[in-house]
């Protein structure tokens, strides 16, 4: 009997943990002020569980060692013809260990002519900078590189 009880409880716990994450996603999907948003959550919200492939088409340029974490230049370039039928829809840039990992999501159109985006981001410490690129056919490409930060830029 004890064994049976134990399995029942185990089942209940598993059911609760399975439901919980989906509930929290619904809340987190709306961007609110300064908020925590982990890279894993962002990844799930954006791709919706679809696989993101590492591709040589996506070029992520970040310095390997950043002396000042407050200003880290990031460039994302995607090899794409940028025509009506085949173009880069969105470029997302993430700082994987910042409390809000999302930096910027850029929605491009064929009128851009070339799929490239550059900006400067803040990094709280040594971490990976990642990018997810959504193509017009619904596939996701990704690239990541670690950046060593000597002085953190947050807080």
């Amino acid at each position: 009997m004890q064994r049976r009880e134990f399995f029942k409880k185990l089942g209940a716990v598993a059911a609760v943990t399975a439901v919980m994450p989906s509930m929290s996603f619904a809340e987190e999907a709306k961007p609110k002020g300064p908020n925590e948003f982990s890279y894993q959550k962002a990844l799930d919200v954006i791709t919706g569980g679809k696989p993101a492939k590492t591709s040589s088409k996506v070029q992520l340029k970040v310095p390997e060692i950043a002396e000042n974490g407050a200003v880290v230049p990031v460039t994302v370039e995607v090899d794409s013809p940028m025509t009506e039928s085949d173009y880069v829809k969105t470029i997302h840039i993430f700082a994987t260990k910042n409390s809000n990992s999302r930096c910027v999501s850029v929605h491009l159109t064929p009128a851009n002519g070339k799929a490239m985006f550059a900006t400067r981001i803040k990094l709280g410490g040594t971490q990976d900078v990642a990018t997810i690129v959504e193509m017009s056919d619904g596939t996701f490409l990704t690239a990541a590189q670690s950046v060593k930060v000597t002085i953190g830029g947050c807080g």
Partner: protein
Amino acid sequence: MGKRKSLIKIKPKKYKDGEVVKVSFMVMHPMETGMRKDKETKKLVPAEYVNSVKFTYKGKVITTMNVWESLSTNPVFTTYMKIDGAGELKVTYTESTGEVSEKSIKIKPKG
């Protein structure tokens, strides 16, 4: 607060119709994360950052960006655009405080 200084740059400066040029938009903005403490008052500085940026060329939206506080102070947004005749390039940006501002330049292709 008043209006912030902003700037739109196009590279190269002289361009032709149909050419793909680099467009940079810069805005002088503190980009407060809401996590930094003021050294004197020891209180958290409230968050204040650029929320979204929109590039409109000849009345057509070409690029929109959702921005969060992880971008550096005085952020720069660089991308490319295809020149398609003379017209106005307008950049609209929204701040987390709800303030909406815009900056525009005239596009004049030569030759």
